[in-house]
């Protein structure tokens, strides 16, 4: 399944995610044709059970789809929708086929079947039909709720560095579409962790593409009578870029590999830290090697670097996750350090307690 997913999504995205499409998306247009093609190929439901029309893919298979979304910087909430549908199914609710996003920053309260409060930084919020998030009920319990974006009292538009929509949605006693108690095997940080996991994979895809683009540019650009790739100083920078690409990719893949029994927050933390730090280094090297041309709007480098600068901060920055991980590790003490590193069963990191 993995190979088929990867070849299909790469074909779709390399055909459709052109520089023109990205420019239109950044000016606020929804990429209708791209989304329809992704739907036609079943990607929004890839992780959902066959009963509801899904492909029942495990997280290791979904990894290659999400990494490709990063490689081609697709301006759609497909990664978010895969997470949202996964959470709905985990909670005994049915996956959706209309456009779905997620909100990890929520202060919603659920009273009866109505919610009030705010969702922040909702990826592609204004374009989504519905949003999955968590809400506290009157008994103080966390619920998975599905909200219709049209019921929001207000949508305040926001964008990240790459002009990707990151919106704020306010609800005032809005009727929910459906809800369920957050299942016992999941934590209140589930959407934050799942979001960080998919961003790590997207970052690794984008760094990979950055490496390919930068290495090939260095082979073509000539100065002092030879390709700049012939200069050792350039070679060494590209080697560091390759190391960072490898680190981000392996770290993200390891997190996905442990996700089928619930999001492995500890390895997600490691993945998001490694990927976010790799993003910073990779973007800097990409620009350094490209020279002035890479600083123009015309040249496609910024499609990658502006997203890397955004994604490294989303769903928790390197510093955010480092602090959480460090607190957890110190609490286990020196004796606990190595056993924890080598045994996923000892890792149970949690950002927000239920």
């Amino acid at each position, binding site marked *: 399944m993995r190979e088929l997913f990867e070849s299909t999504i790469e074909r779709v995205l390399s055909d459709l995610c052109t520089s023109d499409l990205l420019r239109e998306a950044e000016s606020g247009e929804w990429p209708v044709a791209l989304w329809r093609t992704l739907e036609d190929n079943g990607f929004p439901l890839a992780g959902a059970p066959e009963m509801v029309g899904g492909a029942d893919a495990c997280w290791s298979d979904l990894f290659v789809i999400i990494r490709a979304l990063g490689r081609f910087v697709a301006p759609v909430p497909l990664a978010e929708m895969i997470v949202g549908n996964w959470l709905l199914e985990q909670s005994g609710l049915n996956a959706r086929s209309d456009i779905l996003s997620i909100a990890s920053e929520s202060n919603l309260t659920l009273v009866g079947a109505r919610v009030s409060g705010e969702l922040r930084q909702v990826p592609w919020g204004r374009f989504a039909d519905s949003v999955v998030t968590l809400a506290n009920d009157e008994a103080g319990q966390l619920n998975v709720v599905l909200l219709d974006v049209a019921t929001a009292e207000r949508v305040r538009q926001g964008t990240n560095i790459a002009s990707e929509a990151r919106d704020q949605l306010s609800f005032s006693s809005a009727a929910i579409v459906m809800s369920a108690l957050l299942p016992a095997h999941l934590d209140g940080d589930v959407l934050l962790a799942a979001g960080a996991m998919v961003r790590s994979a997207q970052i690794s895809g984008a760094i990979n593409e950055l490496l390919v683009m930068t290495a090939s540019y260095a082979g073509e650009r000539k100065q002092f009578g030879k390709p700049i790739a012939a200069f050792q100083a*350039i070679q060494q920078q590209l080697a560091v870029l390759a190391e960072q690409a490898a680190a981000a990719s392996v770290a993200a893949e390891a997190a996905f590999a442990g996700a089928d029994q619930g999001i492995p927050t500890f390895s997600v933390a490691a993945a998001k830290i490694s990927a976010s730090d790799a993003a910073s280094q990779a973007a800097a090297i990409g620009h350094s090697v490209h020279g002035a041309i890479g600083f123009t709007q015309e040249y496609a480098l910024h499609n990658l670097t502006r997203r890397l600068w955004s994604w490294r901060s989303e769903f928790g920055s390197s510093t955010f996750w480092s602090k959480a991980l460090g607190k957890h590790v110190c609490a286990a003490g020196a004796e606990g350090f190595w056993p924890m590193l080598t045994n996923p069963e000892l890792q149970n990191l949690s950002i927000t307690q239920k």
Partner: protein
Amino acid sequence: MSISEFSYSAIPADAEQLRAAVRAFLQDVLHDYPAEKRAYSWMGFDAEFSRLLGKKGWLGMALPKQYGGAEASPFSRYVIIEELLAAGAPVSAHWIADRQSAPLILRFGTEAQREKYLPSICRGESYFCIGMSEPNSGSDLASIRSTAKRANGGWVLDGQKVWTTNAQHSHYMIALMRTGDKETSGRHGGMSQFIIDLQTPGITIRPIADLAGGEHFNEVFFDSVQLGEDALIGEEGRGWDQVTAELAFERSGPERFLSSIAVIHTAIAAIGPHPDAFQAREIGKITARLLTLRNMSLGVTKQLSEGKNPAWAASCVKDLGNVLEQELPEILQGVVDEQPQVVGGSAHAKVLAYLTQMAPSFSLRGGTREILRGIIARGLGLR
């Protein structure tokens, strides 16, 4: 080169199962082994300990049973060695033999050579050193001048090796020597590998003290050293290719990022269970880097187990790993208000003092940063 070659590979359950036994053994044997000795990492020499490991069946594990091995997967060996390193066990005596000499002899040796050398490696009784570097040949290894010449049905060796770790304690050296003319055999031709019994007359070994006063590496002189026909290992003239294959084993293992783990342990203990924000951030980031390197290293182990020679991927692990190992004493001398101390001071202060001094060597031994990055650049098709 494609980064997707670098994929995640979990440790299989049968290998993972060894962990509890080796951990319990180490807790028992090393229960009063102090932190400042654990900091020696794979530079700590203790022949008695190596023989104990041999008895446990934890040396040469991946070798065929007929030579004393366990025919275990490379992942089984991985579990054992990472536990040894994490505990700071004194593994230096057998380390090189187990890591690279044994696989090299198995792969390139004759049947007689395998039978002669491998069983005692598995018993933890026979130690090897690596004779590559010379006074005028460091990074530019192909420029070596020490020679082996055919004479009366055997070989005669002349020349000098330097920086040879553990030569003074080892039974054998596997050396790269010039056997052919550089002009006629090309830059990477005309070199061959030899297994040299270090008791042979004509060999002089002199320890060289390192900056902290330790004696780990040596200079080794060869003065008309007479060896038998069977000292040659592998094919005459193919020494370069053999060395290159050996280096992938040498560069991708957990000792390339765990050399400073002792200072993580002492730092966490010094910080205590309630870190401030700065301490938490530093410890968290270190944890993430370590976990990611381990996952990368396991990915390379998978490739090696499939018989591939992932030279660039191994170089990625070593270079990134060395950066971490070197930064650890730098970062962790800043997380608590304690200064490094050689004599006196806390465990953390002593470990800091030792590793601060050792750190520069981490990116020299086994190939320098610039050389590794050059190999990666070649993998990228840039040279």
